[in-house]
């Protein structure tokens, strides 16, 4: 065994976080993307820019922004603290940081995918008696699926590799908030090359496997 049992912690944490984040951004991103793809309203451009902002901002800025929100003296943090809840330096903070940075990727990809679905298919389904829920799940979603898959893969990769924002809000607590990218950084810094190399190998092989599998699977979906 190249790694001690405790050294596997960052691997498991990162993978777990990545899957949870993908689930969260899919639940939030898909309805929002669908809404934004079809509706026009006053101030849409501003909302659009706000949603995309975390994609362009440096992760340290996002980390700082999160600290202002959920830090001990933060806007929400103060309120949570009075209830005895502290998010900062916990693995919930890891999830939050990764969600914020991964969300725009999922949102952009699925919005583009929804826009690309020809409206005539939905109209045809309507004339055949389908209600809007059925149309979404049987027509819109399957046709937008390749683009949505791309968004999911990007969000997964971004969550798996999240470094800057995570370090700022969750810190680098081994066994608690130390994700794989953090573990690699601190292993290199402390001269522990063996651990660093092993972790790099694991993350590379794992990422490759996930992307390979998703691509094959979505190809099968399209026949």
């Amino acid at each position: 065994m190249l790694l001690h049992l405790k050294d596997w912690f960052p691997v498991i944490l990162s993978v777990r976080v990545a899957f949870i984040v993908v689930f969260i951004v899919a639940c939030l991103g898909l309805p929002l993307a669908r809404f934004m793809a079809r509706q026009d309203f006053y101030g849409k451009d501003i909302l659009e820019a706000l949603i995309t902002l975390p994609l362009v901002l440096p992760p340290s800025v996002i980390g700082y922004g999160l600290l202002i929100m959920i830090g001990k003296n933060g806007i929400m943090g103060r309120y949570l603290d009075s209830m005895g809840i502290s998010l900062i330096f916990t693995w919930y903070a890891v999830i939050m940081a990764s969600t914020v940075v991964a969300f725009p990727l999922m949102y952009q990809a699925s919005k583009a995918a929804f826009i690309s679905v020809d409206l005539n298919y939905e109209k045809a389904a309507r004339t055949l008696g389908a209600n809007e829920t059925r149309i979404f799940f049987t027509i819109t979603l399957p046709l937008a699926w390749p683009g949505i898959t791309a968004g999911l893969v990007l969000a997964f990769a971004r969550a798996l590799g999240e470094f800057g924002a995570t370090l700022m809000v969750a810190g680098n607590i081994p066994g608690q908030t130390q994700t794989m990218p953090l573990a690699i950084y601190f292993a290199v810094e402390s001269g522990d090359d063996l651990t660093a190399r092993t972790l790099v190998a694991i993350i590379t092989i794992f990422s490759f496997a996930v992307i390979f599998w998703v691509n094959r699977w979505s190809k099968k979906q399209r026949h």
Partner: protein
Amino acid sequence: MLKAHISKKLWNFHLDINLKLDDQILVLWGASGAGKTTILHCLAGLLSPSEGFIELNNRVLYSSVDKTNLATRNRNIAYLFQDYALFPHMTVKQNVYYGLKSQKSEPYHSNLEPIQLLDSCGVKHLMDRYPGQLSGGEKQRVALARALVVEPKLLLLDEPFSALDKHNKVSLRQEIKRLHKEWQIPFILVTHDEEDANFLGDIVVRIENGKCTEKQSVISS
């Protein structure tokens, strides 16, 4: 019987038309951009008129006075789209069953066997193919079967021959005439082709800038 008065302001002209139709084929004939497709969209409920009423077999589908506006899915009007709009991710069979599975009363018992309908449209052998593997004429026939399987009370056809070659066009014109005889429901067909209009129409209405400019009844052979 269909009775309708549709009035709608479009960006470049005002659409205003009266339709009255028994179980005949009404052809709306006119140049592109005359408002023909908008009329079909209003009848199907995909667009709302600004004013007017739509009544099908004494059932009010739309009325600006009573503020009635039935959703498309409750109108029981079939629509054949210009590009057919067959669902590309479903087989021919799944396309035809889609309408049946969408009906409110489930399990839905149709008097029509979908496979038989495909057969009568001459495309039963293509049941397991995807729309991308079909020719234009085949797509058209599948789209007809898909539209009719829910037993509509009115069939709307938007430029049904525009994507077909001469040979396919002639055989499909006859097919539509045959289906009309068999179904005994009103058909409304939109075309810019005078020959199609005269061949198929029991009544031909010429549309120009959203107004009916000429109406003629053709004695069908």
